Each structure stands twice: as C-alpha cells, then as structure tokens.
C-alpha cells in the first residue's frame, strides 16, 4: 500500500484513517497498552509510537493479514475455541504478538507466553483464556 504522508503522521493513524484498516485499535495512545500492535518486519511493535514514514519499504502485518486464503491463523482459531476474548478490544494486538512469538518459540512455556504478552493489556483481565488460546495455537502449529 502506498500513501503520501506528513512526517508527523503516526503509523496507527495511517493504517486506520489513510488505509481504512480499522482492526488495529488505539487504546492508551502512550505505548503502554498494545491495542495498536502491528508486526514490523515480523516483530510486534506499537504503531502509536512510530511515524508512518519510518515504515516506508518495510513489511507491516495488521490483524487483517492473519487470515490466509479464507483460513483463520491458528492463533485466531485458538482465540475462538478457548474464549480468548471478552470485549475484544485488545484481541488484534494480542493475536499479532502471539503469532510472532510462536514463530520464534514453537514450544512455549506458560511463563514464556505470559512474558511475551506483558506489553499487551486486557482490561477485561481475561488472561487465563488468552494464555489457553495461545497454547491451543502452539499445539495446532506443531501438528
């Protein structure tokens, strides 16, 4: 995707307003909550704390990109199966962080999962099922 942007435009605003991809959320707007998480060259980062211009020529994955050819990503499937969401606001960021984490850590411990998502806050505090959802995805990916 391409756009001419003002240097001060934040990546999250470029994604949501310019490209109209609203799966990426804005929560705290202060790089604490992780609702705006996207993958930058495969690594999860907070798109409220990056200028869009910094992403020029680099690969950005948003939650819209997790599903491939009509098939849910195993992490998405896990969040469905294990009730990994309540209000759903943190879910896109949570799933992107989880997908990137599982790529580097195919056999994660529960502690490892909890550390990996420590930059993504769930105000419903549904962490138990979020961890289960990621464990489901790890098992699915290992098949």
């Amino acid at each position, binding site marked *: 995707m391409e756009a001419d942007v*003002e*240097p*001060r435009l*934040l990546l999250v605003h470029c994604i949501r307003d310019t490209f109209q991809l609203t799966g990426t959320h804005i929560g705290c*707007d*202060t*790089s*604490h909550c*992780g609702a705006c*998480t996207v993958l*930058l060259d495969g*690594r*999860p*980062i*907070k798109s409220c*704390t*990056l*200028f869009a*211009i*910094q992403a020029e020529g680099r690969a950005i994955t948003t939650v819209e990109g997790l599903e491939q050819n009509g098939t849910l990503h195993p992490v998405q499937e896990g969040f469905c199966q294990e009730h990994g969401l309540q209000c759903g606001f943190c879910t896109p960021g949570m799933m992107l*962080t989880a997908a990137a984490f599982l790529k580097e850590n195919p056999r994660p411990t529960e502690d490892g999962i909890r*550390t*990996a998502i*420590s*930059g*993504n806050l769930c105000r419903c505090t549904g962490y138990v099922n979020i961890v289960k959802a990621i464990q489901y995805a790890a098992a699915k990916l290992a098949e």
Partner: protein
Amino acid sequence: MIPPGFEYYAPTSVNEATALLKQHGADAKILSGGMSLIPLMKLRLATPRYIIDINRIPDLDYIREANGFLKIGALTRESDLERSELVRSKYPILIDTSSTIADPLVRNMATVAGNLAHGDPANDHPATMLALEAQVVAVGPKGERRIPVSNFFTGILSTALSADELLTEILIPIPPAGSGGAYIKMERKVGDFATAAVAVQLTIGADGACERAGIGLTNAGPTPVRAKKAEDVLRGRKINDEVIRQAGQLASEESDPKSDLRGSAEYKRDLIRVLTARAIRRALERAGNGS
C-alpha cells in the same frame, strides 16, 4: 495525541547524519528507536524542528566481540540483546537489564544506545554501563572520540555529546576470567521505571579476593550514580557477609533519590541497600560460573 510538525531527514551514512546535526544543531533530534522521543513529542514536551532518522544507516546494528571489547552498534535493539547467544552466555547482566526495560514490544524498537543517549537517570542501561566501565563512541564533524560512561552523564537529561555528535557504538571491556555481574530492579509493574535498581560487576582473583568492582544505581539521583565508596570497600577483599553489608550501606549513603509516587526517599535508600547486597551475591555466583 498528534506530535508537532517537523522536517524529516533519513540519512544513509554517519557522515550525512553528522553534517545534518552540524547544520541544525540543537533544533534537531536523532531518532533511533524513538521509544523516549516519540512519546515526548506526542506530549509536546519535546518539539524538535528537525528529525534525523538514523534507521536507514547500514551497519550500525551489531553485537560482536573485537579488540578486547563487546561492541554494540547504535541501532542494536533491546530485544537483539535477548536474542544474542553471545550476550546470553557471557553477559547475563545485559539480559537482566534489557529484560526489565518497558515491555517486549517496546524492546523491539528501543535501542541500547538510545537508552544511554537520552541521559535519563531512570533508564536502566546507564547503571549497568557504569558498573561495566563501558565507553561510548561519538562521531562528529571533527572525527571520532571515546567517552567513558563515567563522564557521559553531565546533568538531568544531558550528556557529554555535543549537538553535532552522534553516538555510534558502545564499547564494553570484555571481562577477564572470574568475572560476573548482575542487575536487579524493583518495579511496580511491567513497563514502569525503576523504584530503584542496582548493577554490580565483579572480578574475583585466584586468591578469592575482589580485584575489580563496579556498582551503578538507577533512579537514585539527578544523574545515574556510580557508588564509588561501595566499590572501594569490595576491592582487594574477600567478599563475605560483613563486606556485603558494608557495601550495601555505603551505596545507600551515596544515593540521592527523590520522594515520588514510587516511594519516599527514605524507602528508596533502604531499597538500594538491600538491592546492592542482592546484586553482589548474584554477581559473585556468576563469577564462580565464569560469567
């Protein structure tokens, strides 16, 4: 929150970056990880007219040992330390430090060099680099110079870098055999700055006496603090419970924390006493294990 407007440069060499710094001086800010700068701009606490984004400069992203130093390039991310087998096996004090900074997502952007160059006494690497007796390499229009980290922090949020200099590399002397280090931080929750934190790096000789000691304190004064008296009490002695107790007491006396939401100054000084003792014990264990 929308940051104020600025003119954006993305130089592709260190020379180009320093030429821009020379041209724009104090009106310009370097953007590396941006994890301190961009939040400050969004809050309009920083309003630079020019942003010099160094992320397009090649060959500044590395971790390697050469010429007696562990060298960390300016664009090395905090999470790169955690991913580095060399750092994990030989420099656990750096893993202690980076793994307590902000959260894993922020660490994918935040740079180790930026953590120093920001000059914030609440940042974590300053104390660790003081304990390790690291140096930084600064490049400006007149060439390159090395600055010991012990002379780097000159005041609140200010460093020895001139307005036209770029921090390009961190140099950590490779510790001799019998060395070990640890960083222990007390934080209220993930992502918070330290209530207090202590870095300790020791070298223990064949006779069991401490040959070298470095102790740095986080959020313990207007600049990062090197606890020299506590270092002195360790050096040349066999480290036993009594010596550890004295070092903790001295480090506490050398600190100058402020009361804030994280605790009273009195509480923080006591915390530094306790954390210093714990960090010395962990460093000693690691010195025994050859790391």
